[in-house]
């Protein structure tokens, strides 16, 4: 068998021309005598020839480009020891963590607990009873007992709804008011039970006794935390049961009509037990609903302390309001009205600053009647006032184009002073324009463009009469006529220009 197999292998090698000369001779001898071997050789040859029929893989024209790019890419990667740095760092960190955990097995739990306490502490900060702020009415408490609803704010925008799922487990929802049906359940109940005023007071007192207990059941704070005491469900049951038992006592006939089954003694026992149990429950376990988690934690809300603080706060507010009311601000102002009576010279405003408003009380203003003096009384006053004003006049000589200087002579006591003024520097026209209504007589007000030295600050003594003469002269009339002519001429020229411009426009070539 073994020999046969060797023969076959040799036959295969013979086909491949891989035998030594002696082996080849031996195989050829065997082949010459064995038809079986001849057939085997033929078969092997056919199988070998199949290799020639296998197609070669198509060429990949971009193989070298991609290969060189890959090699370049790998070269740029971190090599050698650098490649192991992240792994080494990870290993070191792992070892450190393992050592720490070995010697402090509880460290992770402690960290976790600390973190939990810190987060819980944050959400438990400054919790305040929302139901106290909601100012629960009897209607609200009654609705809570019978309809499982509690308002969460005094505007009744949001309601807390207690419920039970199919398996009897409690749940709660916070709903907006538009999802709620407005009810008058308490009043309907009173009228259905036909309770008189005294009986109603009894029911009111029952409800009132629970109202206080309810207030600390739902707490909120500025961190958007809502803490709900699961005891709320028990309280609801207690109010419900208490009201039923009381109703039965108050008006059994009506009660039997409303609740035909009545309340058995056994049920009454349950009610008493429930109430007893409720009283003994510490109720310091709250469900905290926060923006990122829901958890249950014990929380002691000191309602008495809170009430005390609130009372003090209210007292403080009241005191402040009283202080504010007493605060009066007196404002004085001086009147410039000469004819106001002394009583009118002083006014006071009453300003009330409240927590919400600031009110200013103004006295009804009495507008004084001012007697307008006649011109006869004014004239002496004007005369008196003008006595202190110096009038100056100066004849401005006809100025030649070449001569722009004016020689001014003035007298002071027994000395004569003279001064040469550059006409252009005075620039009378521009000054008059810039100061419309300026008194041209009072030249003291005019300041030259160029500052003068101190000697120029002496008053000029002008000849007032000459000034008047100048303006009453016929020469002025003549000048005015000349001016009119000039203006007429200028107007005509302007009109001509206007026409010319217009004609130019009309002659402009069209595109």
């Amino acid at each position, binding site marked *: 068998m073994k020999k046969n197999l060797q023969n076959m292998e040799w036959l295969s090698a013979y086909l491949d021309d*891989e035998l030594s000369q002696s082996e080849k001779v031996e195989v050829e001898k065997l082949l010459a005598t064995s038809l079986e071997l001849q057939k085997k050789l033929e078969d*092997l040859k056919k199988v070998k020839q*199949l290799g020639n029929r*296998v197609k070669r*893989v198509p060429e990949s024209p971009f193989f070298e480009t991609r290969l060189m790019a890959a090699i370049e890419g790998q070269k740029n990667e971190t090599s050698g020891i650098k490649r192991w740095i992240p792994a080494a760092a990870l290993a070191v960190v792992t070892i450190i963590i393992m050592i720490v955990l070995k010697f402090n097995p509880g460290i992770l739990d402690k960290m976790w607990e600390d973190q939990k306490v810190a987060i819980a502490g944050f959400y438990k900060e400054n919790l305040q009873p929302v139901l106290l702020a909601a100012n629960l009415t009897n209607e609200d408490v009654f609705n809570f007992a019978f309809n499982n609803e509690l308002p969460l704010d005094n505007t009744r925008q949001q309601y807390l709804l207690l419920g039970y799922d199919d398996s009897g487990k409690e749940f709660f929802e916070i709903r907006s008011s538009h999802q709620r049906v407005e009810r008058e359940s308490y009043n309907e109940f009173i009228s259905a039970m036909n309770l008189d005023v005294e009986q109603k007071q009894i029911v009111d007192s029952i409800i009132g006794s629970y109202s206080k207990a309810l207030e600390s059941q739902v707490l909120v704070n500025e961190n958007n935390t809502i803490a709900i005491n699961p005891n709320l469900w028990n309280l609801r049951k207690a109010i419900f049961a208490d009201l039923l038992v009381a109703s039965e006592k108050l008006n059994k006939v009506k009660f039997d009509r409303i609740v035909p089954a009545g309340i058995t003694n056994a049920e009454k026992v349950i009610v008493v037990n429930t109430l007893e149990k409720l009283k003994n429950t510490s109720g310091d376990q709250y469900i905290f609903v926060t923006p990122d988690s829901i958890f249950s934690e014990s929380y002691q809300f000191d309602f008495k302390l809170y009430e005390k603080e609130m009372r003090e706060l209210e007292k403080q507010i009241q005191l402040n309001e009283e202080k504010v009311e007493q605060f009066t601000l007196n404002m004085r102002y001086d009147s410039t009205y000469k004819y106001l009576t002394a009583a009118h010279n002083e006014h006071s405003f009453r300003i009330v600053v409240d927590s919400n408003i600031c009110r200013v009380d103004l006295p009804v203003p009495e507008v004084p009647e001012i007697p307008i003096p006649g011109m006869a009384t004014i004239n002496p006053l004007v005369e008196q006032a003008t006595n202190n004003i110096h009038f100056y006049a100066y004849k401005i000589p006809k100025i030649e184009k070449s001569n722009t200087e004016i020689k001014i002579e003035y007298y002071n006591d027994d000395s004569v002073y003279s001064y040469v003024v550059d006409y252009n520097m005075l620039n009378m026209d521009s000054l008059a324009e810039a100061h419309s209504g300026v008194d041209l007589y009072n030249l003291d007000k005019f300041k030259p463009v160029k500052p003068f030295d101190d000697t120029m600050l002496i008053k000029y003594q002008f000849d007032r009469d000459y000034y008047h003469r100048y303006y009453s002269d016929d020469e002025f009339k003549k000048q005015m006529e000349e001016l009119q002519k000039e203006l007429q001429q200028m107007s005509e020229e302007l009109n001509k220009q206007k026409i010319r411009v217009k004609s130019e426009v009309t002659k402009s070539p069209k595109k």
Partner: protein
Amino acid sequence: MISKEEEKDLQQPQILSIDDDYSIIRQFVDGDKSAFQILVKRHKEKVRNIIFITMNNSALVDDIAQDVFITVFRNLKHFRFESQFTTWLYRITVNRCKDYLRKMNVRKIFSPIEEGSEVSEYSSPVENNDISRIVMNAISKLPVKLRMPLILKDIEGFSYQEISESLKCEMGTVKSRIFRGREKLKEILQPLEKELMN
């Protein structure tokens, strides 16, 4: 009249090839990186073809060939010039193919069996007249240890010596495996014997 022996001596294509590869490698070792590209150009088609037939998957050819040449690039400076470069190159190629086949087998274990994925390739030989494809599929069914020497011999035309060096096994083993590979292939292709063999 030149005798057969003399004719063989005159051919010597392998010696020329060795010298060429050696000088190119020396250029590369001396710092001429472009020499590597010459080596790639010379041998890439042979390498790609071995991979193609061994893996029976054209999509993998370039990836594996790239791996092979990257390995060559990284280790070429350590080449000891004791054997032909091609022997070393094909050994790397064969080993890389084996690695891929191993990975594929592992993946097969963990991948879900898809219905209809097992298609009998020989059920309708009339339709599938691509003999090359049939033969390749049959070769891919051979165990790797039989497949590799058979491919190197019957498709790539290697000598037993070259196969022995590339696969790092004895000449006798190569001889035996080639024979057994042919026998097994014949057995696999038995249903299509008439169409294929005649």
